[in-house]
Each structure stands twice: as structure tokens, then as C-alpha cells.
């Protein structure tokens, strides 16, 4: 039987089928010495044991035995919604097996102690294994052991969200059982955060790095809710080629009133100010080059700058994956011709 809990340094990029892609990549980053927030992963085995040992899998199976809907018919979509709500309720009401519950609490305790605090906020993120079609959920700024355990279970239950149910039904996969991993990572108190493509996605130029950044947590950049600052950096150097400082209207930040992260208006004095310094930008790019070298291909990387500490310690990496949608590098002659042919 496989392990349920893995430390970040116990996983590598080949472990996607054990812990999910995101955890595997984070493990690889950690093992290779890149700066990743402290945390741990709950494996696919943990999901399987929860589903089987608690009998929840059986109950879902029973519930679905009378379920009849066509995933290709728009009119059947509300029925998937209904099923999703019912199944998620079943999952989230089911207690986690005692040993797994205890292991998660222990690991969280270790994390809190290392951070020198209690109820240290963490992000609980889903990590589907390669080849899984679902779109699972993640929860930010979770505090306290009870909530962390509940958070892990909610991530598991997100494998039964409407989109995932439909996606599996359409692909003829098992609707009842879709093991995924969970990453529990210490929250970064981010001054600014964003994404980095280690190949210029617009031109396909592998000599250039493209970085987007906004104040606060990286969700606002990933989610495309704001127009972030953007930077183009030449790998040679590295040297900053272009800075586009845009007007940032919103940021994703922990609301002191609720203790939960939410979109808020950016304070007036920060709206038009650059979110990161040149020093931070170049350090992010430098590490980006190394991550790309390590993984052997263009990467799409999430990073954050902690409010505490100084460069390079303040800069952490939250995720990396092979960059998709990178433009095929176009022959400059074709580019010139395209422009000359405009208007014909």
C-alpha cells in the first residue's frame, strides 16, 4: 500500500500518478533546491482509502444507479448540477479515516511550528494526475487543523463538481471514482505575485521571458481579472527589455474583516506604481531560466514576492508546468510579409 502523506522533498516529477501533477512538480522544484513554501501532499492513495474505507464510494454508486442523464445534452445539465450537490454533501459529511486525519493534523502542526506560529494559514490545492480531465478546486487561507482536514476533504469532493462529473461522463471514464492529490502549502504573505512564461508566448522567442505581476496574491493574474504589469526580459543577461506598468484597479488580498482573501480595490497610491522592483524582476527571471533548464522545456510558472525578507529569499515559486499555447516561433520574414499584406 502506498503512502498517504508526502513531504515536498519526498516527491519528484515522476510521481504524478501518486500525488497529482501539481504536487509532483512542486516536489521536483523542492528537491532541486528551488524556493517553494513549506508544505505536504495527500496522495491519491489517501483519496482512495477515504472513498473505500468510509463506504462513501458505495453510497455514491447507489445514488448514481438511478441517475440517468446525457452529458452531451444541454437540457440535462441541471441534473448533473443536482447530482453534484447531493454527492458533495455525502462526501463532505463523511469523517476522514482516523489515521489519515491524525497524519494531516501532525503534518500541519509541524508546518506551524516551523513557521513559528499557530493556526498558520495554508492553501489547500487540488492536484489531478496527468490525463485527468476534471477541473478541481482549491481553497486559500485555511487556518487551524480542523479546517485543514475539512479543506482536504472539500478538495476531494470537488472531483464531484458539476464540470468534473460531465467531463468524465463525456469521456466514458468512471464517474464514481476519480482519485486526485491534494497539496497543502503555507500561504505566502505576498506583496506581489504573478506568472512567468520562460518563452515569449506572443512571438515564440525562446530567448525572452514574459512576466505578469499584480499586487497581492497571484490569483488576480491567473484569473485574468485585472490588467497586470507586464515585463519582457532577455535571457541573455538577463536584461529587462520592456516594462509595461498598467493601472491596477483590483487586487486579491486577505480581507482583515473576514480573514478571507477577496478582490479589493487597489489603494490609490499603488494603482500606477510598478508592483515589483527591477531587482525582484531579474531574480524571478534568473530562477525561471534555471527551472526551465531543470525541467528541460518552456515553463509556465507561478511566483510570489513575500512582504518579509529581501531578494532572493523573498521570492518563492508556487507552481510550474510545461508552457502551453506558446506561439510557434514565426519566421521574421513571414512576420514582415504578414504586416506588408495587411489591408489586402
Amino acid at each position: 500500500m502506498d503512502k498517504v502523506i508526502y513531504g515536498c522533498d519526498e516527491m519528484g516529477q515522476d510521481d504524478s500518478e501518486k500525488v497529482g501533477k501539481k504536487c509532483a512538480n512542486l516536489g521536483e522544484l523542492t528537491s532541486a533546491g528551488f524556493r517553494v513554501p513549506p508544505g505536504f501532499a495527500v496522495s491519491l492513495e489517501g483519496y482512495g482509502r477515504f472513498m473505500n474505507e468510509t463506504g462513501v464510494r458505495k453510497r455514491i454508486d447507489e445514488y448514481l444507479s438511478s441517475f440517468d442523464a446525457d452529458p452531451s445534452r444541454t437540457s440535462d445539465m441541471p441534473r448533473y448540477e443536482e447530482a453534484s450537490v447531493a454527492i458533495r454533501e455525502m462526501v463532505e459529511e463523511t469523517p476522514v479515516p482516523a489515521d489519515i486525519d491524525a497524519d494531516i493534523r501532525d503534518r500541519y502542526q509541524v508546518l506551524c511550528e516551523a513557521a513559528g506560529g499557530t493556526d498558520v494559514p495554508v492553501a489547500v490545492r487540488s492536484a489531478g494526475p496527468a490525463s485527468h480531465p476534471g477541473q478541481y478546486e482549491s481553497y486559500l487561507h485555511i487556518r487551524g487543523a480542523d479546517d485543514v482536514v475539512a479543506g482536504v476533504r472539500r478538495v476531494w469532493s470537488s472531483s464531484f463538481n458539476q464540470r468534473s462529473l460531465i467531463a468524465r461522463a463525456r469521456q466514458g471514464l468512471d464517474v464514481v471514482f476519480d482519485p486526485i492529490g491534494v497539496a497543502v502549502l503555507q500561504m505566502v504573505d505576498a506583496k506581489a505575485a504573478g506568472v512567468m512564461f520562460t518563452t515569449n508566448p506572443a512571438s515564440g522567442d525562446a530567448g525572452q521571458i514574459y512576466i505578469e505581476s499584480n499586487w497581492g496574491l497571484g490569483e488576480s493574474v491567473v484569473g485574468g481579472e485585472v490588467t497586470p504589469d507586464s515585463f519582457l526580459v532577455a535571457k541573455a543577461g538577463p536584461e529587462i527589455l520592456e516594462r509595461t506598468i498598467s493601472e491596477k484597479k483590483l487586487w486579491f488580498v486577505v480581507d482583515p474583516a473576514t480573514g478571507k482573501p477577496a478582490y479589493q480595490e487597489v489603494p490609490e497610491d499603488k494603482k500606477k506604481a510598478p508592483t515589483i522592483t527591477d531587482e525582484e524582476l531579474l531574480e524571478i527571471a534568473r530562477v525561471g531560466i534555471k527551472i526551465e533548464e531543470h525541467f528541460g522545456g518552456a515553463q509556465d510558472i507561478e511566483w510570489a514576492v513575500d512582504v518579509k525578507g529581501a531578494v532572493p529569499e523573498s521570492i518563492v515559486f508556487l507552481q510550474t508546468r510545461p508552457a502551453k499555447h506558446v506561439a510557434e516561433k514565426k519566421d521574421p520574414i513571414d512576420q514582415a510579409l504578414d504586416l506588408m499584406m495587411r489591408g489586402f
Partner: protein
Amino acid sequence: MTAVYGVTQFEFDEENDLKNYDVWFCDLAHSSPALKPLFVLHDWLWPGYRAIQRAYEHLSVPTSTGWDIRLIDGYVYVSVMLTSDEQAKERSVVFRERIRPFIEDAAGLWDKRKFELMAAYDELKQSYGLTTYDSIHELSNIQMLELFDDFLQVVSLQWNVHMDYFIPVNYLYGSFETMCQDLLGIDHGHPLFARVMSGFDSKSFETNREIWKLGARVIELGLEDTFKQIEDAVLLLEALEESESGKIWLTQYRRFLDVYGWRCERMLEWATPTWLEKPALGIPSVKMAVTTKGVSTTDERRKNAYEDRIAAENELLSQVPAEQREWFHTLMKAAQVAPYFSEDHNYYCDLYIGALGRWITREIGRRFAEAGAIDDPEDVYFLVASDIQKTMIPMGRVRLQKRVEARKKEWQGYLATNPRPLLGNPAAMQEVVRKDPVLSPAFAIPKVREELKADLYGGGSAPGVVEGTARVIMTEAELGELQPGEILVAPGTSSQWTPAFEIVKGIVTDGGGALSHACIVAREYGIPAVTGTQQATQKIKTGDKVKVDGDLGIVFINR
């Protein structure tokens, strides 16, 4: 409708031609002063004009099927045959494929074909056993007639090669200028653009270097006073025969002429003698070299232009957004071939074949005058091809004096006329230029900006500002009058004027755009120039104080 020189091929049908075309503009740089009929009809207009249409057709230029041409009052007028939007779209598919090799390596393609031209010139000479300049006298009349026809075939080849390069290379230059405008707000008048387009070596600088070597030799041989005291070039050459050092210099001069003397006084115009034929023609240029003590600044200035270009390229590129830089650089490199080609082709396409034409037609003129068909050998240039065909064999039985008289009178009338720069609607000019990127660098369209309150507005320019005394020079023959430090004012300049750029401070011309000889060479020498003003030689008088502002492309006249 008025036929020019009795030929209807290019006659202007005022009513119809102004209905079908919005605007016609005069090619002042090339056709002013008025050209004589033999050359303009059988070289410049017919095979030349057909070669333009052929190049447009072969390239499938989207916006235009070529230029239409008229001969109006002895001057060449051009308009553009614009296409409809649907035609443009259809033509652009083929165009994309055909223009591509020119973006890849236009200079390489040109270097190959220019040697093909030189080979064709050589073959023409060899097939008639013409090994020396004087051996042409030994041909029979029928050989002479055949040589003339074969020569016209080579003229056709020359024009085809010429336009096969001129059109795409200028198109790319025009496209690059458009991109600079769209992306950076910089046009060809901007000093940075001008700097990026200079610093290229070509055949015409080689000639200048040789002329200055001859000047240095004058000083070395202690002949400086002789050159300064004897104003008349023919008398000077005679005087040089009198002394030992003079003879040494003349030997060197003849060797120079064997290689570089294949040049008519004016561009390709057969009606003007070559330096080979009249060695006195090269003397004003040598005198310019003597005034600088034979010390040429060509290489130094060209080195500066080269270094300045590298700096300017970097400056321009730094203004381009990084992800656009690569294609911009590619297109810039392709566009830079245009000024190089423009100077380099002068030797291969214009000077050499012009000199061949002079050599052959002058021999025909000599024979006709000897047989009494015409009074003066130079009158041959008032004939047309059919006159030559009619007369060559029945030599002595045909009299052409009346034809010559009529056409000479007609030509003298044109010479006295100031051609109108534009016919039709001047406002349509910008649209035509925008639609045909080949046009704007080739022809000057003055950018009139009333707010600058200038006396003249240029269509092309070389950067820098200078004030000085003007000297109006209408033909190459007057170049000897030019004094160091003056501002040269001319209808236009061509390769034969290049030595003048060593000694003048600034240049103003009637015709010529950003790729005209005057603009390109002024940039290479770092001299301010304003070209394509359309009326510089009318408004400026020798002795006037003028301010040439090449940065803004304007001229002020102070009397």
C-alpha cells in the same frame, strides 16, 4: 492631343487621361532638362517603360499594375495604374511569394545579375570584333545597322534587369518607411531614418577615389599651377602635352579613362559625350580634386557614415518593442539594399550602357554627317530609329536635314519651357503615393508645411543644416564653375556629379526623392540636402545666400 517628335505612342490625351487618372507628375530628376528624341524614344521610354510594367506584372504588386507614362512638352510624366480592392487581394497572394527572395537576399540576387549585364555588354562588343574604342570605325554600314539593332536588344535586357530589381527593392524600402511611420512616427525625412540608410559602399565611390588619386598626382608632379591657371580644359590638356611631367600625368589619366571613362556626361543620354571620347570632360572633376590638394575625404566621410549607421540602427531598433524587433530588423536590412542598389546600379545599368549607346550612335552620326544626310554628327540625336534604318544603306541618297531642323526646333521649345510638376488633382498625390510604395522614394512629392514659412519644401532630404552661397548648375558641363564651400543648386544630380559632393557644403534639387542620387550621396558625405523642391533652379539665383535645412527638408533664400 499633341504628339511629341511626331510620335503618338506617349501622347497626352488631356480629356481622357485626366479622367482615368487623378494625377500625373513630372519625372524632373530624370527628364529635365528636356531629353533629345533618339534617346528618350528608343531607350528611356520604350524598353524602359515596358520593363516597369513587366516588373509589376511579374511581381504581382497588389496595389498597382504599373505606371503609365506620357511625354508632355518634352518631359516625362508618370501616373499609377491603381487596382481595385478585389484585384489587390488576388494579386497579394502571388506577390507574397515573389517578393520573399528579395527580403531574404536582395543584395545577393543583384550581385549575380549585374555580372550578367556586364557579360552581355562584353559579348556585344566581341561579336563585332570591337576590341578598341576606335575599332568601331572599321565596321561596314550593314554591320553598323545590325549593331544598332543588337544594341537595342541589350538595352531591353538592361531595362528588364534594372526594373526587376528597382521595383521590389524600392517597394521594400517604401514598406519599411511605412512601418517606421506606423510603429515609431518616423518617416524618410527623419535624420535617424536617413542615417540608417547610409554608409554603403558602391561603384560610384570607387570612381571618386580614382579621381582624387589623379588630383594627388597633379600635386606630386608639380602641375598644380598649370591646372589652376588654364581655365579651359581642352587647352589645359594641350599644355600638359608640352612637359615631361604633364605627359606622365596624361598617361595615368588615359589609363583611368579606359576603365572609368565609360560614362556619358548626363546619365544614359546618348546625346552627351563620354569622358573617353572627350577627355576634357573629366578635367573639372580632377580640378575639384586639386582644390582639395588631392586629399579625398571620401573614405573618411564614408567611414563616418558607416559607423554612424551602425549606431543609428541600434538607436532605431531600441525604439521598437522587443517582440517586434526581429522582423523589423529583417525588413530594415532588406530596405537598406535600396540605397545601395540605387548607387551601384548607376555603373552597371546607366553609365556603362549609356556610354555604349553614345559610342554606337555617335559613329552613326559621324557616317551620316560625312554622307551629307545630316549636317552635324550631333544631329543624329534628333533622328528616330526609322530614320536610321532608312538611311544607313542608301547612304548619300537620303537627306534628313528637314526632320532634324523640325525636331531640333521642337526640342529647343521644350528646353525653354518650365515643366509643370503636377497635372490633375494635387490632393490625390498622397493617396497615390500611399498605395504604391515604389513611388515615394523614387519621385519627390514636396511636403509643404506653410507654418515653417520656408521658400522651398523638399520631397527628400539628407540631414543637417547649413548656410552658404548658392551656385545654380543646370548641366554637367558647368560643373567646373563650382567653388569649394558653395551650395549646389541643380535640376537633379547623377553619378557624374558625385565628385562635386567632395567640395560643396549643401545641395538643393528640383527633382528626386529619398532614394535619388543627390539624397543618397549627400548622406554618404554627411552634407545637408533638400531634394524634389520642384522649383529650386527657378527660385534660387547664383550668389543667393541660402539656408538648407535637411533635418526639416526645407530651404530659405536670403537676397
